């Protein structure tokens, strides 16, 4: 007994600490949830068995083999609608994430560079900074209702509303980085090399300060899914027949009271799952990013050197 114990302790290979066991597996796992949502959204017509906006069977059928998630009050297939709902959520998520990241980076850079300067430019910068401070004080639902109320209910209005709700974080993250970068000596060197302020801002300031904003991008995506569903739930979201999760839940609430749970529960699960998946990916991707970047860069570098 003692011998075997000793033998075991001697032969046991030293386990490498978990953090060091980086690899393509971790990279895959980090991206998997996000990619899964994107795949569902992209291939919705292939996955969904029925048209999401037509009546395909009797109304209020419980889940069965033919209708996986049952049918809703007007006889539309809940499974197909839920799958297409992912497509709507992803469309809005991607557009809003791009708008608020690009817009936030540009506005944040402008604020950061102009903030302490005199004259009209500095004044505009400080005004924008104040406005972005106030934006976070307004609850996103109310902001959404107001914007949709002013602009009328359209996809464009919704994108503007959700972007306004979410752009603040990106602006502030970028501004903070720009305030750091603008003290760097290479901006002085760029000035002495004859670069114009605009060129210097785009070539040096922006690339060196977008990091936090980029890491924030998946979170914007996830928040957009929540806000879109909330707005849909209170009836100012995407218009009716379009399969949108929030609206599906709210329109199925009354039948939920009567014991027909499937038209409300499944979209709700998908909202929760997609937000969780995005949140997971947005935490995991920055962790594997250095590994990924190092490997991709190495590959890229060797290719470029072999060409040169």
């Amino acid at each position: 007994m003692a011998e075997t114990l000793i033998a075991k302790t001697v032969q046991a290979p030293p386990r490498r600490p978990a953090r060091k066991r980086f690899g393509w597996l971790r990279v895959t796992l980090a991206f998997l949830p996000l990619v899964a949502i994107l795949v569902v959204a992209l291939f919705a017509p292939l996955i969904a068995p029925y048209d999401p906006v037509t009546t395909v069977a009797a109304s209020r059928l419980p889940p069965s083999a033919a209708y996986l998630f049952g049918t809703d009050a007007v006889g539309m297939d809940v499974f197909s609608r839920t799958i297409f709902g992912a497509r709507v959520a992803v469309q809005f998520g991607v557009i809003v994430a791009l708008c608020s990241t690009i817009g936030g980076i540009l506005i944040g850079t402008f604020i950061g560079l102009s903030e302490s300067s005199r004259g009209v430019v500095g004044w505009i910068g400080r005004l924008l900074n104040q406005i972005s401070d106030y934006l976070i004080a307004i609850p996103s639902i109310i902001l959404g209702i107001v914007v949709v109320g002013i602009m009328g209910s359209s996809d464009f209005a919704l994108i503007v509303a959700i972007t306004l709700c979410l752009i603040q974080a990106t602006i502030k993250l970028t501004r903070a980085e720009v305030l750091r970068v603008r003290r760097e000596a290479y901006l002085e060197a760029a000035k002495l090399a004859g670069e114009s302020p605009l060129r210097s801002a785009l070539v040096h300031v922006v690339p060196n300060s977008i990091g936090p904003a980029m890491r924030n991008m998946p979170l914007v995506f996830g928040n957009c899914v929540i806000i879109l569903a909330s707005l849909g739930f209170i009836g100012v979201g995407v218009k009716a027949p379009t399969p949108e999760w929030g609206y599906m839940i709210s329109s199925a609430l009354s039948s939920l009271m009567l014991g027909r749970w499937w038209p409300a529960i499944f979209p709700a699960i998908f909202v929760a799952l997609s937000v969780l998946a995005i949140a997971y990916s947005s935490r995991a991707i920055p962790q594997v990013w250095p590994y990924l970047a190092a490997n991709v860069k190495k590959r890229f570098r060797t290719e470029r050197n072999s060409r040169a």
Partner: protein
Amino acid sequence: MTSSDGTDFELTLSAVRKDFGRGHRKVTAVQPVDLRLDAHSELGVIGESGSGKSTLARMIVGLEHPTSGVISYQGRSVEDWLSNRASRLAYRQQVQYVAQDTTSFDPRQTFFESVLVPLRILRGVQSRSEIRDRLEAIAEDLSLDPALYSRYPHQVSGGQRQRFALARSLVVEPRLLICDEVVSALDVSVQGAVLNLIKRHVARHRMGLMFVAHGLPAVTFISSELLVMRHGEVVERGAVDRVVNEPQHPYTRELLEAYADSSSPESSPESGPEQREAAL
């Protein structure tokens, strides 16, 4: 247009003064100073931290604006030179400034990308082959391996980075080169090498030099005229030999004694033996 044909220039500072802050927090970084630089100048500026020597250098290239007084280049004020694009680029091409160089390269650009920018903007060189030739020439001049151009700033040593900073300024063939603490962050043996490179290049291309540093040996090695600054004031000026051998001001004497006393390596940032000879 080129400086290497020995075209002369004249840069004068008259009663140039610089204050930072206002009211009771006002600090005078540079007391009114008069100065004249031309193509034959090898001016060393020495002083302790906060003596205003860097501010003086930075005012000449327009990184700081003088509170009062006029800096003029070729009879035209620097403010005027920098007021429109064409003359600003011309001035930047002719008067270049190199700073102490630990962070003056964008970490996301290779040295190739960084060094070609002034060549393109200030000299209007567009053809790729010409850019490549000139970058290689300047690298050889500064004994840099041209292969290092594809590296990023964090991938080379401090001495190499400093030489790339010099390359970035010298590649446009300026008439006046202002070096601000360019060797202060380097270790002793590298300092000597960089100083020799600067001296050789400046002599070969007959450009004016203003060399700002806090270390006496480096300044005395590279310059023929010396300006000693303290608390924003020029306390002594004159030919290097004169200042070193018969210092007039107590501070200069103190400074010289400090270097004469120190034989320990960490307190005397000298370089190779040839430089020690030149210095003392």
